[in-house]
């Protein structure tokens, strides 16, 4: 086992292979506060990649209702339970939040799925995991919209359960795709080395010629985003719509384009990009890359279950109405700060949040042009000012992709229009 740096854990950890980092890394930010679970992402992916015979149960992209929902059923509860057994003293974080990019969330002191040696069965296994049953894959949207009420009270929702800062009756939608992890558990577990991470963009792929259906990747991936196809007897997973990322898809016009699930997002919760990495796997300073800004400057976007140890490249702006202990378990110690900043955004964050889904092309850089003050008031006891700033998005070659303003432009439809009666 090699020792590799994991900035999300704030320490080195063990991993079956030496660390190797791509030039740029496929990454994304999902703003859960905006997700309405319309499943447009789910269907965009399904209709592009998994519509064939034998793929009926496959949903590379899915949206599940938390806390009860999950695809496969209870995937996170099961892996958290295994991790708890591997950490009988309790998995915990130490240290403080900081601006140190080697450990912005402090340090995770527990064992990751790669470090739970005593739990591994058989002993030769490299990753702590489990193989879901067919039954667990059968209901991709189970418990949709099922809320949690007060403990011990049945058939009764809290009377003021909808009031912030934390709802007493709650659920939220968690949109998920493969996290194209920096340390993929699927890759670590594959006995045939059929899984690889592309050096140019960090996308994790299964070589369909090499896979022999051992299903070790299915067992190992803690997010359960590797899936076995019964009729070909080969495992498959999200390919990050790589022809679009490469700009080779006919729709891409030669420009790096966001994935189908991102582009289809009705709620405008998604932004995807390619972030530059340092030699130690940390994100290289790229101040005006919107993902870099959201993760490392504003710190409103957090990795999903960082304690698993795979260094996932999917980041989430946590839902502000959900009890914090639940969110801390899911997104780590940065939750309180992230929500505080999201609820009280500064001028730049307000502007960057306008970049979500204004274009299908990948944004490499943004620029802000200050505009006039358009609102002043009080919100939750704080003075609030809103400026109609303009934010400009640039593509790979520095070309302007679009520009938009904080105030949504109003378009007045002419009296005589296309479908006038």
């Amino acid at each position, binding site marked *: 086992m090699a020792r590799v740096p994991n900035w999300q854990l704030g320490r080195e950890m063990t991993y079956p292979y030496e660390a190797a980092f791509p030039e740029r890394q496929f990454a994304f930010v999902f703003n859960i506060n905006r997700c309405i679970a319309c499943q447009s992402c789910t269907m965009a992916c399904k209709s592009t990649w998994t519509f064939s015979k034998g793929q009926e149960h496959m949903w590379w992209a899915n949206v599940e209702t938390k806390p009860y929902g999950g695809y496969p059923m209870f995937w996170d509860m099961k892996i958290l339970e295994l991790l708890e057994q591997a950490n009988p003293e309790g998995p915990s974080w130490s240290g403080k939040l900081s601006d140190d990019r080697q450990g912005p969330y402090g340090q995770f002191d527990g064992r990751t799925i790669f470090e739970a040696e005593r739990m591994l069965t058989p002993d030769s296994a490299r990753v702590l995991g489990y193989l879901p049953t*067919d039954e667990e894959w059968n209901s991709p949207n189970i418990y949709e919209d099922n809320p949690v009420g007060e403990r011990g009270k049945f*058939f009764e929702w809290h009377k003021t359960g909808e009031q912030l800062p934390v709802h007493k009756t709650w659920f939220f939608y968690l949109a998920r795709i493969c996290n194209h992890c920096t340390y993929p558990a699927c890759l670590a577990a594959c006995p045939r080395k059929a899984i690889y991470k592309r050096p140019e963009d960090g996308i994790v792929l299964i070589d369909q010629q090499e896979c*022999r259906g051992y299903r070790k990747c299915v067992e190992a991936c803690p997010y359960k985003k590797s899936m076995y196809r019964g009729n070909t007897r080969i495992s498959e997973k999200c390919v990050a719509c790589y022809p679009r990322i490469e700009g080779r898809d006919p729709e891409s016009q030669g420009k790096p384009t966001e994935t189908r699930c991102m582009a289809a997002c009705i709620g405008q919760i998604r932004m995807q990009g390619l972030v530059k990495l340092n030699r130690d796997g940390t994100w290289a300073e790229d101040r005006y890359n919107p993902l870099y800004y959201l993760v490392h400057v504003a710190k409103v976007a957090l990795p999903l279950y960082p304690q698993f140890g795979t260094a996932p490249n999917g980041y989430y702006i946590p839902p502000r109405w959900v009890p914090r202990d639940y969110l801390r378990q899911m997104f780590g110690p940065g939750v309180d700060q992230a929500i505080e900043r999201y609820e009280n955004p500064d001028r730049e964050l307000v502007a960057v949040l306008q970049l979500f889904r204004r274009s299908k092309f990948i944004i490499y850089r943004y620029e802000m042009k200050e505009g006039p003050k358009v609102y002043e008031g009080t919100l939750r006891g704080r003075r609030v000012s809103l400026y109609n700033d303009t934010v400009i998005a640039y593509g790979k070659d520095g070309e302007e992709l679009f520009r938009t303003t904080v105030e949504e432009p109003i378009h007045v439809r002419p009296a005589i229009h296309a479908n006038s009666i």
Partner: protein
Amino acid sequence: MNTATRSTFPNSKFAIRNSKSDGFCVEWDPRFVEEAVLRAVEARRVQGFRGERNRLYEIQDPEERDAAFREFHAVWFERLNLGGVIWRALQEQPLILANTRACIVAQARASRDEGAELFVSPAGEGVGEADRRSVGIRLGPQRLLDADHLLTFLRHEVLHIADMLDPTFGYEPRLPRAELGPAHERLLQDRYRVLWDTSIDGRLVRRNWAPPSVRDRHFHEFTKTFPMLGERLEEAFSHFFDATTLTHADLVSFASNPLAFLTSFSDPHFSNSTFEIRNSKSSADPRPPLHAGERCPLCGFPTHAFVPNPNRLPSEILARIRADFPAWTPSRGVCLQCADLYRSSPRSDAGAAFAPADSKR
């Protein structure tokens, strides 16, 4: 004699067909076989399996490759003796071997679908009774990894089939229609299921095929199903658990009217008053909680959905119910629909205040 040949299986090209008794065979769903083998190989850390299997991926023609995989997994299924437990459970029931021609073992979609069924095809000229019948067993493939538990489960399931084939049991596929509607039909089914399961596991315990602790589990279920039997529960339970010969008619008769059945007992302690059906609208006596299929004391409709703990209903709702039903106490239970009605009644009253005067009555 154990032979393995191929035969056509519903919804798939090939199935493994085993024959250990004259005229009777077991057909295995290839999908079930493959999944069971893959899980067994993993659990038992079988050597040599993967290398052999990997070579099949080199076959270019998809259909040929698929057939090769099926045959390969079938061979390993035999080699690992994964079907042995199922064979054993079947062979313990001569009635099944003599009166059916095949058992089809397939993968259960979910654990709640696991079990055995008897299938009977329509009568045809020249087709014998036994040839029309087949047994279907649905299981999760992971079940085969725990042979002891599986055997216990299967013995219970196949004894149901044996009863269905036993002329002295006199099985009828349909229960009598309940005059009081579908809710009562479901109630009758539930009661019948409890009685039959009780009788079957009683027989299994006496053969040492099930642990004695099964008795407690069934008594608990029996108590929940027949709370109206009061202090005579144990006696009635024993009547089914310890019985050597029971018929379908006995079970139906008891399930349809447990009170009438018990009054036929010679014991002078049994009387109508002991087993009186509750008339919940008029009585204020403390009574045991209601059970699925009984009538809600407020609306009077039979229901399977009672509020789990009416004591926990908000006090204003309890007060509103008592205003309409002074004799009602939470211990008497209330259905979810009535609870919802009373929960929303403040809003209805508030709405009524704004309604036009001529609509208020």
